[in-house]
């Protein structure tokens, strides 16, 4: 965070606290992309995404007065969004309504001579199957795994976002990874998706 950005954030927050709509709009536009990506990676594509994004930002603005400018504004907003995602995961007794699994021919998709279309289909199916596995994890484990493995955050940052210790976060990530690897061993599409990390995704 550059010095100017930091100070501008502080000033922007103060404008928001006065109820200035232009400032509120500006803050939303600055951070909406990152928050949406974070929620999407944690929860997967689902029909509640609009409501979740809205709820996360409403929560941000309700709590804005408590931001003490000790963490960067982006990190603080991410923390609020993660808390929102955690609440969503905890409240839902059933699985998250991800897109339904389609019964594609796993052999055709994973064949070495599969074309670009098949590979794109493999990526889509792999994502869906991955989130089906993640649905079986506890909310805390899912958050730790998705923030670290899918959103690319460090373990320390993940621990800060979820409010856990680094050791506990590491353990949750490790257990979730084992669970995904076990599922991938039994599912050729998921296995191929996970193993193709170094391939270029079209």
């Amino acid at each position, binding site marked *: 965070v550059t010095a100017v950005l930091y100070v501008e954030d502080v*000033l922007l927050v*103060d404008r928001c606290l006065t109820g200035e*709509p232009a400032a509120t*709009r500006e803050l939303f536009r600055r951070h*909406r992309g990152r928050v949406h990506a974070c929620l999407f990676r944690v929860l997967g594509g689902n029909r509640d995404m*609009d409501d979740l994004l*809205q709820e996360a930002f409403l929560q941000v603005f309700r709590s*804005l007065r408590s931001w003490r400018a000790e963490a960067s504004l982006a990190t603080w907003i991410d923390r609020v969004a993660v808390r929102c995602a955690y609440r969503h995961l905890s409240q839902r007794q059933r699985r998250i309504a991800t897109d339904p699994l389609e019964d594609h021919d796993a052999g055709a998709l994973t064949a070495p001579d599969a074309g670009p279309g098949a590979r794109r289909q493999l990526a889509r199916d792999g994502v869906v199957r991955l989130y089906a596995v993640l649905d079986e994890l506890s909310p805390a484990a899912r958050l730790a795994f998705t923030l670290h493995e899918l959103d690319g955050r460090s373990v320390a940052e993940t621990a800060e976002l979820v409010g856990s210790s680094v050791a506990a976060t590491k353990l949750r990530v490790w257990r979730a990874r084992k669970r995904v690897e076990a599922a991938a061993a039994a599912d050729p599409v998921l296995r191929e998706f996970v193993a193709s990390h170094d391939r270029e995704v079209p």
Partner: protein
Amino acid sequence: VRLAGRIPVEPLDEERLTQIERRVVAGAVDAAVRGQQLRAPGRLLAPLIAAAAIAAAAAVGWAIRGAPEDPQVAAPAPAAVPELRVQTAPQRSVVDIGDARIESDPDTAFAVTRPRGGVLVAVARGKVELEVGKRGDRPPLVVRAGDTDVVVVGTRFSVDYGDGSGDVDVRVTEGVVRVVHLQQETRVAAGQAWRTRTGLIAMAGGPRAAGAALSGAGGPTTPGADSPAARAPDRAPGGDAGREPGHEPTHAPTWGTDAPGMLHDRRAAVPDAPAPPAPPPPRPAAPAHPAGHEPPHPRPAGHDDPRLDLGAAIRAQHIEPALDLGEPSPAGAITRYYDIAAHRSGDEASQAFYSIAWVRYFRQDNPADALQALDAYVRRFPGGKQYRAALWLRVRIQCLERFDAACHAAAYTYLHEAPDAPAAHVAELLTQAE
């Protein structure tokens, strides 16, 4: 498993984003307004009003139900008959009721009753000044002005009820009184004042100045120029507020025919001529601008306290200087302050924030941005090294612009956070400046 960056994020289309943004902005503005209301000084008013409404509803219910059927419950005592009614004409009047000496301004109306051994002075309009002897074990003397009671056990003070429909202004010269308003009690000591709208405040010049504003031993005076009576725009001398048509005001108090004998030997002295006005106290000398820069804002006009030039008083207060970086251009200095604020901590960072505000105001003539930086300072560094200086600079910016709600709020905050600071006295005056 290495999946970072592998999950493509499905973008939201513009229409959905616009809808979300609209709802978020509406919710955020609502939350901000509610937050400000919660933090406003008058936030306690709502429960008090609710309590008053409940009490009023109970009273109405009682009246509708009529007398209680239970014979054990005593009927309410009949209203006390006024023993003394006073309506003054253009002159001031002085009434000695034994328990107290009551001076009243021109066009003042009040009545004295003695319920249950105490003394109740009910003011209908105008201003009374009382000198009350020690009451010992006797019930207290109460001055009632509208819904405000001033409870006295022995002191000198004044109660100004203006035209009988607005604010009450209580000023204490000696001793202590208790002001009861909307079931809330405030102790007002010598040198302090209490007003309906502002609550407890200190008087300019302390008890001595307050004493000059009252007559008493110093002789009668005209009402203070900032009193509600003087402020009431529709209150002409000899105004008829609360006066019955065709009933000319009496120069001498009117004794009630049913007044008990103990009051019949009291005398009401009415001056033959209007009281001479008190000499105005000297104004403080206009000081030089401490920062060497005259603020670009006009002096406030219209404050009604002739005893003090508030604009000059504001400028007279010390302003903490900005961090000196030897940077000649304001923009360059601000860039460097930004850098310090972001990368340092503690006093250095707080001083940088304060310096941003200082440069914005004094060197860039940008009070709006200066106020933003000061608000940021106050939130970010409560108790910081320049905390009081930041609060005072905020007072200075707000109150040199105009005496409005923002000025009052800034002055209140400063007074609350720095009650012992040299500028606290000026802040007190600013809380009541209009």
